[in-house]
């Protein structure tokens, strides 16, 4: 079991790992997607770089710095975080890890698809969590929007509940999945429609599909998906934290762009450092209580 699992390898996640590893905590960093930092062409307002630095170099240096310190860092897509006995379970496409604490540093990348009707029908047939809401679609026809590992994972959570599952790739590549009640429609989507609740999907070629619900699972799971599934309080898509970077769930911390505010490296580094230090204190207190 890890003492701390950090999700995200940008300035917030890496800073947190530098502190937890130096305090001898068994630290795991998981990352997958490109960090927001990598996209920054040139950073000229960060302390210590008089000629500026490009985002990709800074990002890669951060990763190599934490590796050098001996932090275990793995490029694996995180599918879900769940509460388990004495901590948490973090499932990736390759493994399941158990950890006493989790630091979410997943940035502010949004998965929100720009399809008409999705926002409007949130909670009225549009869902972001198969494991939480699948119950309401027992014996019904549902769609899963997406085509990656996360969409497959959501589909698997619905297979034994829903009558028919249609994976909608919205024009993207068709994933490979075989199950009796799963089919794939690769057509582009025009609109999600209904009266009081979701009733049908209309495609760009004017064809329609009757459904009772649609689960949004485009791209990889991120801040919003993890928060919804765990029950972390958010303000919009931003995780609500206190000055210790604690979320409403004891043992789960958040830092960096995923908590909103200034989208700056300096702020992410500060929050990452704080989260790391607070995890150290939290585990120390926990050990003391257990004695």
């Amino acid at each position, binding site marked *: 079991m890890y003492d701390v699992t950090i999700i995200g390898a940008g300035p917030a996640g890496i800073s947190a790992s530098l502190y937890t590893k130096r305090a001898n905590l068994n630290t795991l960093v998981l990352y997958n997607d490109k960090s927001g930092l990598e996209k920054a062409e040139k950073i000229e307002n960060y302390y210590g770089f008089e000629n500026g630095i490009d985002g990709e170099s800074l990002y890669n240096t951060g990763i190599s710095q934490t590796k050098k310190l001996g932090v275990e860092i793995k490029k694996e897509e995180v599918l879900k975080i769940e509460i388990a006995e004495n901590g948490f379970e973090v499932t990736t496409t390759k493994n399941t890890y158990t950890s006493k604490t989790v630091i979410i540093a997943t940035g502010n990348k949004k998965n929100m698809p720009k399809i008409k009707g999705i926002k409007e029908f949130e*909670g009225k047939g549009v869902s972001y969590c198969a494991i*939480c809401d699948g119950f*309401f679609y027992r014996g019904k026809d549902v769609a899963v929007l997406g085509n990656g590992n996360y969409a497959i994972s959501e589909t698997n959570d619905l297979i034994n509940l829903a009558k028919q599952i249609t994976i909608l790739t919205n024009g993207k590549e068709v994933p490979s999945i075989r199950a009796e009640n799963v089919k794939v429609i690769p057509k582009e989507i025009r609109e999600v429609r209904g009266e009081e*609740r979701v009733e049908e999907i209309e495609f760009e070629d004017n064809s329609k599909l009757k459904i009772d619900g649609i689960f949004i699972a485009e791209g990889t799971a991120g801040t919003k998906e993890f928060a*919804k599934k765990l*029950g972390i309080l958010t303000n919009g898509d931003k995780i609500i934290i206190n000055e210790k970077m604690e979320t*409403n769930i004891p043992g789960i911390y958040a830092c960096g762009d995923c908590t909103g505010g200034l989208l700056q490296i300096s702020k992410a580094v500060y929050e990452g450092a704080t989260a790391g230090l607070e995890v150290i204190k939290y585990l120390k207190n926990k050990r003391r209580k257990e004695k």
Partner: protein
Amino acid sequence: MSVLRITNNNFEEEVLKAEGPVIIDFYADWCGPCKMMSPIIDSIAEEINNAKVGKINVDEAQDLAAMYNVMSIPTIIIFKDGKPYKKFVGVTSKENILNELN
């Protein structure tokens, strides 16, 4: 006040015919995020006396969940004069709920 357990049997009496607002938490035992909502609901019940606070287990009262279009849990509905007045889908803060009562 303590949190009321609302079922098909007492829904009409406790919610529809109630004087003043009623805050209802639709939940299930298997639902992870509902466990995070639960302490928030308990603390609201302890703190206020101008509204009733209750919980509905959607496994036991599926028709009540369906009647109010609950398709995701936790869902919090504030009833006023027997009618849904405000709905929160997903875990929401104590402040958000209390703000709707004032």
